[in-house]
């Protein structure tokens, strides 16, 4: 009887240390390191006319003060453009420290290093920077009007304009029996993990090595960038990812200025240096997302079938564009959702503003696209007087239409082709789960009691598991431990557990014997990172492939030892044995011993691998051609294109028109990410995603004033939800395997957040009968909408 770990609700390997307070987060080490602090711009847009550090020089414990003028070589150049694209005609990236001009409140101008953080801040607040304010460009309307420019050499504030088209949308709309136009908008928000960013660097002068610990979503990305900028060999730079207290996208940006400045100054001083972001710094210098304005034209027939769709939208990229145009590309290509489109044209303009730079936040452009598509479908249903579920059903791609090719290019530069799915199946499940059919009676009964109930539904498709690749190394040690390393990082997803489950199944060992390391370039130097719901798909398949190679090698070595054929062997509970004869076997730990021919024994067990231990074929080398010592293997998974997960959410809300408050009465999620490695962890991802979705729909927004000051840059004013503000979603799964990867899995990390704004807007609209075209919606805003209608 073989235990199968895939699919089980295995308790997390990570938790033992985390519930003891034994996690190792960035600021949990380096207690004796020097501390860095930053002087940041108080202006959204200004010229720097002078920096006076005189008063700071008297501060006890001050070690150094650095401005752009102090930066050598590549460090004085703009930071890397991470994702170039032919349509990104005017890319701009920031300097590590501002060079003569600042473009958003919070941009780093001066770095101070002192004996501890208290003293570094003492010195920082005595530094006087003189500014000549320039007109700020705040918000998409100002960016589009372009009366003022963020970068004087970027006409119209336009970073990029891109169009993609399937069929002939304009002609299809012109010929359609019904046409609607909509203007829709989503405001700015941010990831806001509970742990901010942080960097700790140590230069080992004797070994000539730089060790960087950073709270990142891509340790290999940081390593390549820092080595390049500082002119060090890649092999002299180690980047270790400690326990990371949440990322949600913002920590995939690299190198942040601090991530290259702290290693540089650590090497310069020959001292450990650490910088830990405080909460204000997180609001004004860690990247934001979401703000977009959309104009939609849609043509449809009497059944609500979409005949043509044209979308023009404007994307706020903030002050700089290090992440290129990936976000608006995701919006443009995920907007079609689970629906059949024959004619679709989308054009977006990415615009600079004097605000914090915009890069992916969980959902990454999809919540906006989903909001636009789902609001459009709801409006079609309203115009025709048909059911919102009915119009969706009429447009859903059928299970027999996969693979479904949109003839467009996805965010990974690969074809936009949905690999598999059962969207009608999801719709049936979500209608059941929320009680769609009985809702009209429920709504009427509530109305007679003076309660205004509404129901909403929203559907999405999410491209997950984007390439280019991930890899893994699996090593069975002679003590029987299975050591697994993969290069991508973890921020709470439970990778140590799910990758151990995959390896345990492949190797036939107990999950407790598998030890997974992520995000340490010393253990696995080739990787991309954790973003875009890709970790389980990419590294999950990579560890499976590497474990399969180890298993094959173990069977080959054991076959020699047992004098059996490899195909007659299996591995169970860590023992390789003849199928049907468990007594004729050899433990994997001993196979590991035999895999490495020894001159010198190091234990009683290891004597079996020494040169006089047993007779050997005199004509065969101890390590034959094509073989390698050690029971280990390395392999990579690189997909031809992304795999597409899907899901549908439905909500019942109660609106209090006197207060403008929205109570979520019920919230239902159906989700299809293929086979679940660990259902408990997938549900956790959905819970957290829905929470961020609800927050983004009803509570959170990044509020800039006209001058470009971030008016709510604290947890007192930015309304991250507590327990009392959130629903407990009911969840159902559907498991449609992907044909694209060995495990058949799809990503799950971002799904929960994607359709929430669309779903709640629909439910609120149904409750109050007022069009919901912009999200988030606060109680005062909803109250004002109701008053004016």
């Amino acid at each position: 009887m073989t235990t199968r770990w895939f699919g089980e609700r295995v308790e997390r390997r990570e938790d033992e240390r985390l519930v003891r307070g034994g996690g190792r987060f960035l600021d949990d080490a380096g207690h004796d390191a020097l501390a860095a602090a930053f002087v940041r711009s108080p202006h959204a847009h200004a010229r720097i006319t002078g920096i006076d550090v005189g008063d700071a020089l008297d501060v006890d414990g001050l070690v150094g003060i650095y401005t752009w003028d102090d930066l050598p070589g590549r460090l004085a150049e703009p930071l890397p453009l991470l994702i170039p694209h032919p349509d990104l005609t005017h890319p701009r990236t920031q300097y590590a420290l501002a060079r003569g001009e600042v473009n958003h409140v919070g941009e780093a101008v001066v770095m101070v290093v002192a004996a501890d953080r208290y003293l570094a801040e003492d010195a920082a607040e005595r530094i006087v920077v003189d500014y000549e304010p320039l007109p700020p460009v705040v918000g998409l309307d100002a960016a589009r009007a372009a009366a003022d420019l963020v970068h004087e050499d970027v006409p119209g504030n336009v970073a990029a304009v891109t169009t993609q088209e399937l069929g002939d949308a304009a002609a299809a709309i012109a010929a359609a029996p019904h046409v609607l136009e909509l203007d829709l908008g989503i405001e700015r928000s941010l990831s806001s993990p509970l742990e901010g960013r942080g960097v700790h660097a140590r230069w080992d002068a004797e070994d000539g090595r730089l060790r960087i610990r950073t709270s990142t979503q891509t340790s290999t990305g940081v390593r390549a960038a820092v080595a390049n900028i500082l002119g060090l060999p890649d092999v002299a730079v180690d980047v270790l990812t400690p326990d990371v207290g949440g990322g949600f996208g913002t920590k995939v940006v690299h190198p942040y200025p601090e991530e290259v400045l702290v290693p540089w100054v650590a090497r310069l001083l020959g001292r450990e240096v650490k910088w830990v972001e405080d909460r204000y710094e997180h609001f004004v210098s860690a990247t934001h997302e979401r703000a977009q304005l959309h104009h939609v034209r849609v043509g449809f027939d009497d059944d609500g079938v979409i005949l043509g769709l044209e979308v023009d939208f404007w994307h706020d990229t903030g002050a700089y564009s290090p992440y290129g145009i990936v976000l608006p590309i995701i919006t443009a290509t995920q907007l079609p959702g689970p629906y059949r489109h024959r004619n679709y044209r989308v054009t977006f303009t990415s615009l600079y503003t004097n605000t914090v730079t915009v890069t992916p936040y969980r959902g990454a452009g999809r919540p906006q696209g989903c909001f636009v598509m789902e609001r459009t479908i709801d409006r079609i249903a309203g115009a025709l007087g048909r059911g919102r579920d009915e119009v969706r059903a009429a447009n859903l791609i059928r299970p027999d239409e996969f693979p479904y090719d949109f003839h467009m290019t996805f965010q990974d530069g690969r074809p936009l082709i949905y690999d598999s799915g059962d969207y009608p199946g999801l719709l049936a499940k979500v209608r059941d789960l929320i009680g769609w059919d009985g809702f009209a009676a429920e709504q009427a009964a509530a109305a007679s009691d003076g309660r205004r109930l509404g129901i909403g539904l929203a559907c999405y498709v999410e491209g997950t598991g984007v390439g280019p690749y991930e890899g893994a190394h699996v090593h069975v040690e002679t003590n029987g431990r299975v050591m697994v390393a993969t290069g991508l990082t973890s921020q709470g997803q439970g990778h140590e557990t799910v990758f151990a489950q995959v390896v345990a199944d492949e190797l036939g060992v107990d999950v407790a014997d598998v030890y997974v390391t992520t995000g340490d370039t010393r253990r696995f130097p080739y990787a991309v990172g954790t973003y875009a719901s890709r970790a389980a798909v990419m590294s999950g398949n990579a560890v499976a492939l590497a474990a399969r190679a180890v298993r094959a090698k173990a069977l080959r070595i054991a076959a020699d030892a047992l004098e059996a054929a490899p195909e007659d062997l299996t591995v169970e509970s860590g023992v390789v044995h003849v199928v049907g004869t468990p007594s004729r076997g050899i433990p994997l730990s001993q196979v590991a011993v035999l895999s490495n021919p020894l001159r010198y024994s190091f234990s009683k067990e290891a004597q079996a691998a020494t040169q006089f231990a047993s007779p050997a074929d005199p004509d065969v080398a101890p390590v034959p051609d094509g073989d390698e010592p050690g029971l280990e293997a390395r392999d990579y998974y690189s997909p031809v294109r992304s795999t597409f997960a899907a899901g549908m959410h439905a909500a019942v809300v109660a609106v209090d028109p006197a207060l403008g408050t929205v109570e979520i009465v019920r919230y239902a999620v159906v989700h299809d990410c293929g086979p679940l490695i660990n259902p408990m962890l997938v549900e956790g991802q959905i819970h957290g995603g829905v929470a961020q979705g609800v927050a983004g729909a009803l509570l959170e927004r990044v509020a800039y004033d006209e001058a470009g000051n971030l008016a709510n840059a604290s947890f007192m004013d930015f309304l991250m939800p507590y327990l009392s503000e959130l629903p407990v979603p009911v969840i159902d799964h559907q498991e449609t395997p992907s044909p694209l990867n060995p495990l058949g899995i799809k990503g799950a990390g971002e799904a929960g957040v994607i359709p929430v704004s669309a779903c709640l807007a629909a439910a609120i609209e149904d409750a109050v009968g007022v069009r919901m075209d912009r999200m988030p919606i606060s109680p005062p805003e909803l109250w004002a909408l109701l008053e004016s209608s």
Partner: protein
Amino acid sequence: MTGRSEDHEVVLTVNGAARSARVPARRLLSDLLRHDLRLTGTHVGCEHGVCGACTVLVDGRPVRSCLTFAVMVDGSEVTTVEGLAGPDGELGPVQRAFRECHGLQCGFCTPGFLLLATDLLARSSQPSDDEIAEALGGNLCRCTGYVNIVRSVRRAAELAAEP
């Protein structure tokens, strides 16, 4: 910044052990615990008293250690997450429940919730859902949506009641 004349001696009991440090008046309790005493299980999420990740028990009651100066707890008994396991290192019921119910993801806010739950169960062995919501309602978590945190606290009450 240590050893200066204006520093203050702080003597306290942390997780049952006598500890002391010389610190400036402005030293936060969170920094005393984390950096002077090297008890890094207490985390700092906002440093303005809203997120509650830094929650510890001072004389048995939950306190935001980021809003408390170290000198204010001179003579007090402080319990941090490191003090929740049994004397033999065995996880306590609240810790076991959070692991069993997947009540944590990144684990950064977790110490604060563990201490709030410990305080709640000390006051009410069979807390109602309203009591749980009241007790945990002032701390922020960005990962879990709180669903499994609430389940964990219910489960912790069961585990604590087991003989």
